[in-house]
């Protein structure tokens, strides 16, 4: 009886650990930055299209002219992006879908759409977004501990 109980507990712990791992894998969030900028591919500069609309989960998240950057968020290891590309002003619109594998270690991922559309090497169109360092000295934050409940409950 005791052995059976131990077995059930072990299975439960393993199951919960497995769910944790799955959640960490499928729940990794990234901020995606879409660059509609010209880039050099195999020694040749490829110009950015006149306009690119980016859709994530069917929702338009960016409407980018050449040289623009847009952003969105994505949860999961592979981003599904739909693009509506207008190569030249007044030209035809072309719809293309892409699946982009996102590097786990990057919180912010910059995707150069020109590289993506022209099948450039993965490393050349994916890079980490590094926010600009500010020159301002960090201000020390006073820690507020509410032991006597002066802050109330759930008040937005």
């Amino acid at each position: 009886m005791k052995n059976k109980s131990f077995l059930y507990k072990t299975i439960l712990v393993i199951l919960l650990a497995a769910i944790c791992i799955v959640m960490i894998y499928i729940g990794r969030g990234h901020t995606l930055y879409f660059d509609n900028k010209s880039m050099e591919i195999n020694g040749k500069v490829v110009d950015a299209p006149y306009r690119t609309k980016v859709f994530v989960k069917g929702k338009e998240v960016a409407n980018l002219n050449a040289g623009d950057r847009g952003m969105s968020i994505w949860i999961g290891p592979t981003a599904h992006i739909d693009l509506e590309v207008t190569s030249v002003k007044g030209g035809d619109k072309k719809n293309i879908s892409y699946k982009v594998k996102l590097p786990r270690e990057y919180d912010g991922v910059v995707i150069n759409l020109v590289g993506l559309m022209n099948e450039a090497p993965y490393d050349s169109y994916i890079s980490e977004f590094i926010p600009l360092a500010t020159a301002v000295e960090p201000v020390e934050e006073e820690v507020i501990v509410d032991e006597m409940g002066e802050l109330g409950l759930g008040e937005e």
Partner: protein
Amino acid sequence: MKNFDLKKFLADRSVPIMFIIICLVCIPLSGFSTSYLFNEIVTRVARNTFLILSLLIPIMAGMGLNFGMTLGAMAGEIALIFSSDWQIWGIPGVVLAMILSIPISILLGALCGTLLNMSRGREMITSYIISFFINGIYQLVVLYMMGPIIPILHESIKLPRGYGIRNTVSLLNLRQCIDNLISVNILGVKIPVLSFIIIIALCLFIVWFTKTKLGQDMRAVGQNMEVARAAGINVDRTRVLSIIISTVLAGFGMILYLQNMGNIATYSSHSQIGMFCIAALLVGGASVDKASIGNVFLGVILFHLMFIVAPRAGTVITGDSMIGEYFRVFISYGVITLALVMYEAKKHKKKKMKDGGDNEE
């Protein structure tokens, strides 16, 4: 057929009746529209009910009102800090936080339950003090150990000095992910269906649990520990288990609560959660030794209705919104005091009657 005793009926429900009267007076004074009030109430019911339901099992086991649920709330917060630091967003972030909170809650619940077994008969005050004690340890862990000892990856959630967690941790990417996953809009009132499904599932679990062997043991222990012990029930273990279950559920409840709020007030979110949940349960007509799911729902509606309308009503009556703020805090503490006094008075009366009966014999 038994005669209906109006006096007894009113006496047993004096707290909810008092609150209904307060709300009926305050609602017209506040001037809030019906749809606004409905929206607020639905949001708050979805946000708070899970936490309050976590109090039912210790009451069933005769442990009284578990002020130690704060421990579960702290476990939930620590788990959410990790989930946020590891950038696990959306529903997976909530699920991960729930799983991570389980071992912390079990550990804290076992500690609390063991201490409560040592202070039998004074469980409520002991659990209240334990929550302060563990709050100190929580602060030590979060304020000093997170960073140098417990790895925290992102500078954005650390204090500028390089260790410890900021006063507020943003849960923007988890915010209302459960509330919004399945929600419907009925006459301008947003109903977070999934949140209510989770609450109903917990209600069903509690109903099922009371019928299990362990549930029956808890009920027996709650009614009379000596009789339960004589019947072969391991009283101490049963009591500890009731606190562990309550703490784990409180951890889940805190995670659901914070995903609705969208941020963690690291050093204050949990501090009064036990007090307010207990006040809400008592407002619903529960007592120290008896509480039902119905009490939870009635309590959360009445208590939060009062919370919404009292400040505005206070402003209208006195011209100072702070009066309303003070009023609702005063009511929260007052209702707990009233319920405890009434419980003791009833117990005293019962004992007196029993002693009188014994003497007559």
